[in-house]
């Protein structure tokens, strides 16, 4: 079973593991992206994520279809969280299952790479010094570190 979803509640690993379960499957690869306390050396207190939900879910579904076609994986879960996230909380989960481990691991890597490159979701860093910056903003107000 696949799950493709942008949500504002916490990401649940158990739901994903259940979805990709399959008696024909021998390898399950999962990637969890979590909010960390620094970005390029600058201390952070957390992240705010926003998405264009409808297009984001459509693009994640397109990526999931690519992973099945390219790597032959059986099931794909892609969940991205939006809203205010505290340190240590999970922002994104990619989980895939496949008959063989190599395909599962490669598909998982491709999945997170493509989500980061293509899915219309944006994050704003809440710096520990109180400033905030969208990661993609070419004119980010605080120029001490490259965004």
């Amino acid at each position: 079973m696949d799950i493709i979803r942008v949500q504002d509640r916490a990401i649940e690993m158990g739901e994903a593991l259940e979805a990709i379960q399959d008696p024909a499957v021998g390898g399950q690869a999962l990637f969890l992206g979590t909010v960390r306390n620094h970005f390029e050396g600058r201390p952070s207190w957390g992240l705010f994520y926003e998405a264009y939900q409808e297009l984001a879910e459509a693009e994640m579904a397109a990526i999931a279809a690519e992973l099945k076609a390219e790597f032959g994986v059986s099931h794909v879960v892609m969940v991205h969280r939006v809203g205010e996230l505290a340190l240590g909380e999970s922002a994104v989960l990619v989980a895939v299952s496949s008959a063989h481990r190599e395909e599962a691991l490669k598909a998982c890597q491709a999945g997170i790479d493509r989500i980061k490159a293509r899915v219309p979701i944006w994050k704003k860093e809440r710096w520990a010094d109180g400033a905030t910056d969208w990661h993609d903003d070419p004119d980010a107000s605080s120029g001490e570190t490259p965004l």
Partner: protein
Amino acid sequence: MRDITVLFFSYAADRMNGRSRRYAVADGTTVETLFNEKLAPVLGDAIGQFRFSVNAAWADPSRVLADGDEVAVIPPVSGG
């Protein structure tokens, strides 16, 4: 005339001071024309900085807008 809704995200929403705006545009107006005439003066960024969707599907800047279309201005993504 066509009645177009435009959605903004991330720093584009900050600069537009809102997450959506409505515009009335002439027949035959493309995404590119809409951007250059109505949005660029406020956003202050070149069209090449953005991608676009129309009705929640990716769209080329040359796309001709229809009445009621919902256009989204998509800054470089930073999810994950």
